[in-house]
């Protein structure tokens, strides 16, 4: 409980600083719409963008890229960063080896000021040491899990990591214990790679903490990008659990629900899809059941009407792309917004364009308004944000499912604090 209070106070303080900084620079930016601020170079700011655009990760990657472009348009329309125009240098994230090369290229050849991007875990683990070695600011969108990071990036100066990806499994476990307290048996179907494995292990640990008698009767491991689940579904039917857990986050979620609906898998079975919200607008009502837990990571497109930034963003995104944004859009937007805010913060103090080291120092502990709400970086350079999970419902004006009620879980509640180990932290919970 102490933690949340400290967190809350910090958030207030951060809000105050951010708000005043934003008000100050907003005024300044308005006055100098075309002229750069004093003491600031006049060439454009170069931002490197590294979205994934192919394969399964291309789904969130594309959302992130689109959000980045919307941010770019908006930023340049309101005077750029301290009056400097912003330019993107984009390279595609592909395999770790090739992405490392592109990262170096952006740094050494294009000489970008900051690189925003990185979704796949393997790529993230490869990029971290390179960022540190080159002294390049790197704001990751979504890449890390707890295990490998401890080895390769214990204390980073220039790399700013994403949220611990097991957060959604933690949230899912809490949600399951709260909304489905009577389940006795659980099965899991997860992608056969680090994220899938870590989510399943985390979910089991959390659920066991609340309900020690739950039995885990089956775990399945289709490869990432699998498109044919009929055999897996047959196997789940055979095991007949009360609830099915999955950490699917891309196109396979939609396919799975389609094929499951074909055989009435969820007639009685409950489900917890802790990250399925990533493809939420493809989860059509005609095959996605109501009454199951669905997690949207950091962005649920209509959790409130009173956050103008979100309303504006969702409208803009939908108008342009005829789709609703997902969490990666929020991550991408946030990193760019955080960079801008950090630069402005430094400028407010020093009166000159900051070095990468200064920006890095300003980013630590920062809080900025993003499209999902307020979010920031912790003291050890990890993202923190709100996570949205809820129970699916068909009662909405769309042809896909939404969630109601919506549970909002802040990072302080479901992300392990700096320096702790995940399972020790879970064991230490009082309730």
């Amino acid at each position, binding site marked *: 409980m102490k933690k949340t209070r400290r967190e809350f106070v910090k958030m207030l303080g951060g809000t105050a600083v951010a708000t005043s900084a934003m008000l100050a620079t907003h005024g300044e930016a308005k006055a100098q719409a075309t002229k750069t601020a004093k003491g600031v170079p006049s060439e454009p700011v170069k931002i490197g963008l590294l979205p994934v655009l192919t394969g399964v990760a291309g789904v969130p990657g594309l959302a992130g890229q689109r959000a980045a472009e919307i941010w770019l348009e908006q930023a340049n329309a309101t005077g750029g960063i301290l009056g400097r125009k912003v330019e993107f240098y984009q390279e595609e994230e592909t395999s770790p080896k090739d992405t490392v090369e592109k990262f170096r290229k952006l740094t050494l050849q294009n000489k970008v000021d900051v690189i925003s991007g990185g979704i796949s875990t393997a790529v993230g683990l490869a990029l971290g040491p390179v960022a540190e070695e080159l002294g390049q600011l790197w704001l990751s969108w979504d890449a890390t899990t707890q295990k490998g990071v401890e080895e390769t990036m214990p204390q980073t100066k220039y790399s700013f990591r994403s949220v611990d990806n097991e957060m959604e499994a933690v949230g899912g476990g809490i949600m399951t214990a709260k909304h489905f307290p009577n389940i006795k048996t659980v099965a899991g179907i997860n992608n056969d790679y680090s994220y899938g494995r870590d989510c399943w292990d985390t979910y089991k640990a959390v659920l066991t903490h609340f309900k020690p008698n739950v039995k885990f009767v089956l775990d399945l491991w289709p490869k990432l990008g699998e*498109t044919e689940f009929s055999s*897996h579904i047959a*196997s789940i039917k055979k095991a007949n659990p009360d609830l099915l857990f999955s950490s699917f986050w891309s196109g396979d979620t939609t396919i799975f629900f389609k094929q499951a609906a074909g055989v009435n898998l969820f007639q009685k079975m409950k489900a917890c899809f802790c990250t399925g919200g990533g493809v939420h607008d493809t989860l059509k009502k005609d095959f996605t059941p109501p009454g199951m837990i669905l997690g949207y990571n950091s962005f649920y497109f209509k959790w409130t009407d009173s956050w103008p930034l979100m309303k504006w963003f969702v409208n803009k995104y939908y108008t342009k792309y005829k789709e609703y944004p997902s969490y990666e859009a929020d991550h991408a937007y946030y990193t760019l917004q955080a960079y801008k805010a950090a630069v402005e913060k430094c400028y407010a103090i020093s009166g000159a364009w900051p070095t990468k080291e200064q920006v890095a120092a300003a980013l630590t502990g920062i809080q900025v308004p993003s499209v999902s709400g307020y979010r920031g970086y912790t003291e050890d350079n990890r993202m923190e944000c709100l996570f949205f999970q809820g129970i699916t419902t068909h009662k909405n004006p769309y042809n896909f499912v939404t969630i109601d009620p919506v549970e909002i879980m802040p990072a302080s509640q479901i992300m392990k604090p700096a320096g702790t180990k995940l399972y020790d932290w879970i064991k230490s919970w009082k309730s």
Partner: protein
Amino acid sequence: MGTDIINILFSGIFHASTLFLVAAGLQVVFGVQRIFNMACGSFYALGAYVGVFFVKTAHAAGLPPALSLIPLIAAGFFLFFIGPIIERGLLRFVYDRDETFQLLLTFAVVLMLEDVIKFIWGTSPQSTSELYLVYGQITWFGAVLPVYNLIVIASSLFIAVLIGYMLARTRFGKIIRATVDNREASEALGINMKVVYAKVFTLGTVLGTMGGALVIPSTAAMTEMGVELIVMAFAVVVIGGLGSMKGAFFGAMVVGILRSIAIATYPEVELLVIYLIVIGVLVFRPEGLFGGSRA
């Protein structure tokens, strides 16, 4: 218990049907032209993407969902023109070259088609909605089976029978079998190889695109699906025997059902088992189940 067995078998057969459609195109081309067409997976992908497009357009124009099979089949046939383009435009220049060069040329086609798909449809997955479930389900001994899956299985069987009939009874089929057995003799007998090759390759193309279009309602079209599929198709034809249609059929069954059983009993080994079988077959019986003898 019986329900479980039915579910496992049925899902295995469904997967086998999708594999068969990809593999069939591969087999017919290899059997006649001795070219292992790596792009068969890409044809399948093209069929899937175009299938989604045709269905969406048809729905928007008012076609009732129950008739959606029509635009799907149309999509498969529509793409036949890819066959002659690739065959006349690229492959025919390497017929007299080493097999390995032909293989590499098909690899080049894979690369090109990957970006063609990306160019036309972007990178978001494409899928149909309100189609898969429109035919409902049947219940058999407690097992719930989507009717659409039955349609796919039936279509594969129908295509297999059709091909079998064509090979055995029609003139074109006889030409194909003759060429497979002895190319020089066939040529000596006055068969125009150029025409045969063009036709066969087109047939192989349509088998692939048809497969993609038919299966798409149950899944989604995603980038790189062509590259991934090739590995499975390759396993099927090796096990069944390169060049043999029967081989495609039984190879697909083996892979589909074995995979289903593995998932139901020991899911960890799912993918490894397939590769081990492939290597085992290549080592102990390289002709596969039904292939002729060759080295």
